[in-house]
C-alpha cells in the first residue's frame, strides 16, 4: 500500500520523518494528501514555503502579485539577485520544485481580494497568512472563518513576531478563536508601521516563518499541540517569549466579506492634499534654468542609496531646520515615495505659513523609474 503511495525516491527523501515514532509513514501520508495555501511569498512566505516544500506537503498554492525587489533580499531568502523584477509567485514555484519535484505547486499571481478570496481558498485544507497589511489580514481571517479553514497566522515588526492558529478545529468539532477575537478593530492607518516603514530584522521572518510552517505541519498531521486559542509572542532583541491564552469573543460575528480598506480606515480621514509636481514636470523645471530649491526629507542612509542632489533635511528635523527652506521661489520637496514629503509640506504650511511648496509625486523612486533609469530604486 505504502509503496503505491510513495516512490522509493520519496521514501528515501522523507526518511528522517519516517524514523520519528510520533510522525512515521502516517504523518508523511497526511502531508502528501494535504493542500496548503500560502498567502504572501515575502519575508514569512520564503521560509514557510521552503520548509513546507521540503517536508513534502502534496499541494502548495502561492498567492502573490508582487515582483522581487533588491531590498527584499535582506530577508526573503527564496530569491536571488537574478530574480529581481521577476514575479515572486512564479520564481518561488520554480525554486521550490527544484527543492522537491515530488509535490504540486499552484501559482495565483494576483492580489488576494474579497472578489477572489473564497474561490481561491476553497481548494485548500489549510491557509498560512504571511501578508503584510491589516486589510488583507482581516480578509484572510474572515475568508478562513467563512470557508471553515484553519488560518495559521504569523506577523512581524522590527524585532518582534507573533504566531497563532486561528479558527482551528477543536475536539468537539467547534472552532477556536480567530484574529477578530484577538483584535476586533484595526489600528488607524499609519499608526502601526509596516516593515517598509518601520523596518524589520532580516532574520526575524526566518525564525517566525519557520514556526508558522511548524504549526501548519502539526495541523495537517495531528502531531503535537497546535497553537489553537493561544498567541505566541517573540522579541528577538530581549529574547522574551510569551504564550498567551486567547478566549473567544462572543460579540465576534463574521457573516460575509466586507470592504477591508474601508474597515481599516484607508481612504477615510486622509490628510489634506498638498500641491504636487509630477516627475516629468520636475524634469522640465530642472532643465528650464528657472530658479527653484529641492529639499530631500529622507534619512542620510537613504540619501547614500540614491539622491538627486536635494538639500537633505530629514523629516524629524524639519521644524528645527525650516529656515533653510526658501520662501521666495518654487520649492520641490521629495522623499522615497511621496508620503513623508507630503507630511513635511503640511507641517511647514501649518506651522510657518509656507505657500510655495510642491510635493514630488511618487518620490525619488518614481523619478528613477520614469525619468532617470541610471538611478536605483529601493
Amino acid at each position, binding site marked *: 500500500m505504502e509503496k503505491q503511495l510513495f516512490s522509493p525516491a520519496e521514501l528515501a527523501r522523507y526518511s528522517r520523518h519516517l524514523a520519528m515514532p510520533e510522525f512515521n509513514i502516517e504523518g508523511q501520508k497526511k502531508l502528501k494528501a494535504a493542500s496548503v495555501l500560502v498567502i504572501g511569498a515575502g519575508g514569512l512566505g520564503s521560509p514557510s514555503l521552503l520548509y513546507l516544500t521540503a517536508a513534502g506537503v502534496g499541494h502548495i498554492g502561492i498567492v502573490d502579485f508582487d515582483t522581487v525587489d533588491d531590498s527584499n533580499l535582506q530577508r526573503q531568502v527564496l530569491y536571488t539577485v537574478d530574480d529581481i523584477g521577476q514575479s515572486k509567485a512564479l520564481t518561488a514555484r520554480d525554486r521550490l520544485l527544484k527543492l522537491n519535484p515530488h509535490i504540486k505547486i499552484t501559482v495565483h499571481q494576483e492580489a488576494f481580494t474579497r472578489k477572489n478570496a473564497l474561490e481561491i481558498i476553497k481548494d485548500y485544507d489549510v491557509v498560512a497568512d504571511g501578508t*503584510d497589511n491589516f486589510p488583507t489580514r482581516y480578509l484572510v481571517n474572515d475568508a478562513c472563518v467563512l470557508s471553515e479553514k484553519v488560518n495559521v497566522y504569523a506577523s512581524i515588526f522590527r524585532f518582534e513576531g507573533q504566531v497563532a492558529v486561528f479558527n482551528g478545529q477543536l475536539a468537539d468539532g467547534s472552532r477556536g478563536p480567530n484574529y477578530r477575537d484577538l483584535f476586533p478593530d*484595526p489600528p488607524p492607518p499609519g499608526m*502601526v508601521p509596516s516593515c517598509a516603514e518601520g523596518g*524589520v530584522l532580516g532574520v526575524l*521572518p526566518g525564525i517566525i516563518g519557520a514556526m508558522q510552517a511548524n504549526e501548519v505541519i502539526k495541523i495537517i498531521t495531528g502531531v503535537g499541540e497546535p497553537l489553537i486559542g493561544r498567541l505566541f509572542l517573540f*522579541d528577538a532583541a530581549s529574547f*522574551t517569549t*510569551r504564550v*498567551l*491564552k486567547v478566549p473567544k469573543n462572543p460579540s465576534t460575528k463574521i457573516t460575509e466579506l466586507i470592504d477591508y480598506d474601508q474597515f481599516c480606515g484607508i481612504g477615510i480621514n486622509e490628510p489634506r492634499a498638498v500641491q504636487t509636481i509630477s516627475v516629468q514636470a520636475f524634469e522640465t523645471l530642472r532643465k528650464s534654468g528657472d530658479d527653484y530649491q529641492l529639499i530631500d526629507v529622507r534619512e542620510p542612509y537613504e540619501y547614500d542609496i540614491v539622491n538627486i542632489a536635494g538639500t537633505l533635511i530629514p523629516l524629524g528635523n524639519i521644524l528645527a531646520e525650516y529656515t533653510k527652506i526658501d520662501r521666495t521661489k518654487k520649492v520641490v520637496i521629495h522623499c522615497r515615495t511621496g508620503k513623508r514629503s507630503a507630511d513635511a509640506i503640511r507641517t511647514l504650511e501649518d506651522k510657518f505659513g509656507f505657500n510655495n511648496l510642491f510635493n514630488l509625486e511618487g518620490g525619488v523612486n518614481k523619478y528613477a523609474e520614469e525619468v532617470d533609469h541610471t538611478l536605483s530604486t529601493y
Partner: protein
Amino acid sequence: MKINILAFGIAKDILDGQTKEIELSHGNDVKSLKQTLCDTFPEFSKLRSLSIAVNEEYRNDDYELKESDEVVIIPPVSGG
C-alpha cells in the same frame, strides 16, 4: 496600586521602553488600566484594539488586577 507593564510592538514605542510601572488612578480593573494608559499616553487612545493579557491570558475590562500580576500589552502588527 502600582502595576508593572510589559509592552510589545507599537506599545513599546509609546511607553518608550519594554517595561513600565503604572500607577492606577481610576480603579483596579483592566478597564481602569486602559483608562490610565490613555490618559498618560494619549497615543493609546488611537489604537482601537488595546488588548491586555494578565498572567498569560487575555482579560476582559472587568478583570480585577493585583499588584503582583504580570500585565502584557500586545497591539496588532501586520508585517510579513
